C-alpha cells in the first residue's frame, strides 16, 4: 500500500490528533548480530556440561524415582493403594492429568496462536515452551494410563481389534479425550520437530566445522539435510503456518474435551456450559505460569537477557493477567449461575465449595488465581524478576487447587447427604504426583543440554537487520530510511 493510499484510508481525525509514532520494542537487546545469536544459543548445548546441570539432573532423577516407585507399587498391588473410595472415585489422578495438560497448553498458545496473531516476541520463547508442552503431556499421560489399574489393558482405549470383538463407546467424552490427548501429543511433537529442523542444521554445520563428526552426523540425520534453500523455506513457512492454523483449534478443542469429561456429567458443580472456555483460559493461565517458572532461571543462568528481554516478560505477565482475570470472572459467574439457576443442588455445590470441608483449598485457589495475577497491573512488579518468578509459582499452585476444588468438592458431596464423604490422598498418590515434577525436570534438563533451546532462525528473522527492507543502501523499493528505522525497530 502506498503512502497516499494509507493516508486516504485512515480516519481524518488522525491528521488532527497527530498520534505519536512509538518505536517498537526491541526483541533482541543491544542490536546483536546474527552470528552472536547463533553462538549464544548453540553454545548452551555445545559447552562442557556445567556442574549445576549435574546437580539438578541428579535431584530431578531422585524426584522422578518417586513416580516410578509409586507406579510400581500401584501396578503390583492394585489401584486400591490410592485414596479413592466411594463417593470420590476420581481424584488426584484426574486432577493431576488436567493440571499437566493445562500447563502444556501455553506452549501451543505461544507457538500457534501467537504465530497467527503475528506476535513476534514469541520467537524467543516458543521452542522451550513447546518442549514444556510435550513433557507436560508425558506427565499428564501417566495418570489416565495408570488409573485404570490393570495397565496392561491400556490399549483397550484405542480402537484396535481385540478378541472380545467389542469397540470403544464413542458417545463418551472419555473416549474423545483419548483421541484429543493423543492427537495433541503427536501434533505437538511434530510441530516442535519441524520448527527445529533449520536449527538442527545450524548445529550440524557447527559440529562439522569443529571436527565433531559423530555429533554432526547425529544432528545432521535429524536435520534431514536442510540447507536453507529459498525454495525450501517457501514450503516450510507455508507448512509451519498451516501447523499453527490447525494447532490453534486443536489446543482449544483439547481442553474443551477435557472439560467435557465433567460438563457432560449430571453432577452439580460439573454440569455447566461455562466449563469449556473457563478450562481453556485456566489452561493458558497455568501454562504461562509454568513458562515463566522455567524461563526466568534459564535466562539468568545463561545470561539470555538480550534474547528474553524485559518486553518478553511484560508480554507474558500481561497474558497471565488477562487469563487470570478471565478465570476469576468464571469463578464469579459460576456462583451467579448457581444462584440464578435456582437449582438447590447446584446452589449447595457452590456454597459447599467455598464454605464446606474443602474451604481451605477453595481459599488457596482464589488467592493464587484471582489475586496473584492482579499484581501484574503494576510495571514495577513486572520488572522485578524475582517477584515475577514467585508469582508464577503461585499461579502453578493455584491452578492445581482449581482442579482439586472442582473435582473433589463436587464428588464428595453430591445429592444425598447419606452418600457424602471426605477424600484424602494416600501417600502413594502424593509420591506419584510429586515424582512427575522430577520426570518433567529430567526431560527439560535433557532438552536444555542437547537441543537448541530457542528458535535460532526465527529470532534472526525478527531482528532489525533480518528485515530485507530495513537497509536503505540496498533497499530495492527506495523507501525513506527514516521510516525504516521506525519500522525496523
Amino acid at each position, binding site marked *: 500500500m502506498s503512502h497516499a493510499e494509507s493516508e486516504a484510508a485512515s480516519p481524518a481525525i488522525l491528521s488532527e490528533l497527530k498520534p505519536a509514532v512509538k518505536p517498537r520494542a526491541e526483541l533482541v537487546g543491544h542490536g546483536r*548480530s*546474527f*552470528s552472536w545469536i*547463533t553462538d549464544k544459543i548453540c553454545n548452551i548445548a555445545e559447552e562442557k556440561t556445567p556442574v549445576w546441570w549435574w546437580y539438578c539432573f541428579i535431584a530431578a532423577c531422585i524426584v522422578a524415582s518417586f513416580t516410578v516407585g509409586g507406579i510400581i507399587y500401584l501396578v503390583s498391588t492394585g489401584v486400591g493403594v490410592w485414596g479413592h473410595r466411594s463417593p470420590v472415585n476420581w481424584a488426584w489422578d484426574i486432577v493431576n492429568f488436567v493440571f499437566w495438560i493445562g500447563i502444556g497448553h501455553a506452549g501451543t498458545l505461544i507457538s500457534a496462536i501467537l504465530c497467527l496473531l503475528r506476535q513476534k516476541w514469541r520467537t524467543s520463547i516458543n521452542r522451550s515452551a513447546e518442549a514444556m508442552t510435550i513433557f507436560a503431556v508425558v506427565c499428564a499421560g501417566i495418570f489416565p494410563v495408570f488409573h485404570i489399574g490393570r495397565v496392561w489393558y491400556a490399549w483397550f482405549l484405542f*480402537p484396535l481389534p481385540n478378541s472380545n*470383538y*467389542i*469397540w*470403544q463407546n*464413542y*458417545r463418551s467424552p472419555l*473416549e*474423545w479425550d483419548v*483421541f*484429543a490427548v493423543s*492427537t495433541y501429543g*503427536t*501434533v505437538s511433537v*511434530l*510441530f516442535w520437530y519441524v520448527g527445529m529442523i*533449520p536449527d538442527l542444521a*545450524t548445529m*550440524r*554445520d*557447527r559440529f*562439522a566445522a569443529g571436527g565433531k563428526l559423530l555429533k554432526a552426523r547425529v544432528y*545432521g540425520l535429524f536435520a*534431514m*539435510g*536442510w*540447507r*536453507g*534453500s*529459498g*525454495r525450501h*523455506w517457501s*514450503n*516450510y*513457512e*507455508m*507448512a509451519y503456518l*498451516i*501447523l499453527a492454523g*490447525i*494447532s490453534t*483449534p*486443536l489446543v482449544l*478443542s483439547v481442553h474443551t*474435551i477435557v472439560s*467435557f469429561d465433567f460438563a457432560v456429567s449430571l453432577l452439580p458443580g460439573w454440569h455447566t456450559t461455562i466449563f469449556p472456555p473457563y478450562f481453556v483460559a485456566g489452561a493458558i493461565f497455568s501454562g504461562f505460569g509454568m513458562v515463566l517458572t522455567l524461563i526466568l532461571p534459564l535466562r539468568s543462568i545463561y545470561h539470555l537477557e538480550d534474547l528474553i528481554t524485559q518486553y518478553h516478560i511484560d508480554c507474558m505477565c500481561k497474558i497471565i493477567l488477562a487469563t487470570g482475570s478471565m478465570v476469576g470472572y468464571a469463578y464469579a459467574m459460576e456462583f451467579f449461575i448457581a444462584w440464578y439457576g435456582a437449582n438447590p443442588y447446584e446452589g449447595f455445590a457452590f456454597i459447599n465449595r467455598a464454605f464446606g470441608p474443602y474451604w481451605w483449598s477453595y481459599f488457596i485457589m482464589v488467592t493464587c488465581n484471582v489475586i496473584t495475577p492482579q499484581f501484574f497491573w503494576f510495571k514495577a512488579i513486572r520488572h522485578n524478576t524475582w517477584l515475577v518468578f514467585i508469582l508464577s509459582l503461585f499461579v502453578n499452585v493455584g491452578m492445581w487447587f482449581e482442579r482439586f476444588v472442582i473435582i473433589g468438592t463436587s464428588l464428595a458431596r453430591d445429592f444425598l447427604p447419606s452418600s457424602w464423604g471426605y477424600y484424602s490422598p494416600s501417600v502413594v498418590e502424593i509420591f506419584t504426583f510429586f515424582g512427575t515434577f522430577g520426570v518433567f525436570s529430567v526431560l527439560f534438563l535433557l532438552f536444555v543440554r542437547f537441543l537448541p533451546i530457542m528458535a535460532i*532462525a526465527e529470532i534472526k*528473522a525478527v531482528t532489525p537487520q*533480518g*528485515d*530485507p527492507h*530495513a*537497509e536503505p*543502501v*540496498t*533497499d530495492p523499493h527506495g523507501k525513506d530510511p527514516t521510516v525504516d528505522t521506525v519500522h525496523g525497530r
Partner: protein
Amino acid sequence: MADKTYGLIATFDTPGAVMHAAEQVRDAGYRNWDVITPFPIHGLDQAMGVGRSRVPRISLAGGITGFCTGMSMIWFMDKFDYPLTVGGKPFFSPLFAFPVSYELTILFTAFATIGGMFVLNGLPMHYHPVLNYDKIRRGTDDQFFIVIEKTDGRFNADNTRALLAKVGGKDIGELES
C-alpha cells in the same frame, strides 16, 4: 572438470542484498537456481519468482481424509460391526462422532502438511552439492548465497559469473557435483 561442475555460488552479506540480487537473477530469466539463507526472509519467494507453495493442497487432502476416516470408523464400529446399546442412544450420529473426527482431521492434516513439505522439498537429502561448499557453514549462520545450476538453459560460465558479480555477489566460486 567442466562436466563435474554443479553450478556457481556467490556470497552476500545482508538479506537486503541477497533479495535485491535474487530479483535480478529472476529477471535475467534463470530457472534452476536457488538462494541459501539462514532464516526465512520475508518476500524472498516473490523476489525469486517462486509461486505460492503447494503444501496447502496436500494439507486439505489430509484433513478431508482424516474427517472421513473418523466418521466412517465410528459408523463401522458402533453401527455396523458391533452395535451396542448404551443408554438407549443411537448407534451412530454425526454429533457424537464429531469430536473424534475433528481430532483425526487435525492429526491427518498435520501428517499431510509435514509429509507434503518434505516431499515437495525433496527432503531428507543428506547429500547435496551445495553442502560440499567449504563456506556453506555460514549459510546456516549469518551469510546468504545464490546458487545458479549448470542445468539451467541460460547457464554460461562466463555470463552467469558476470551476472552474479554485477548483482553484488562476492567470492564467486564453482560447486562440484
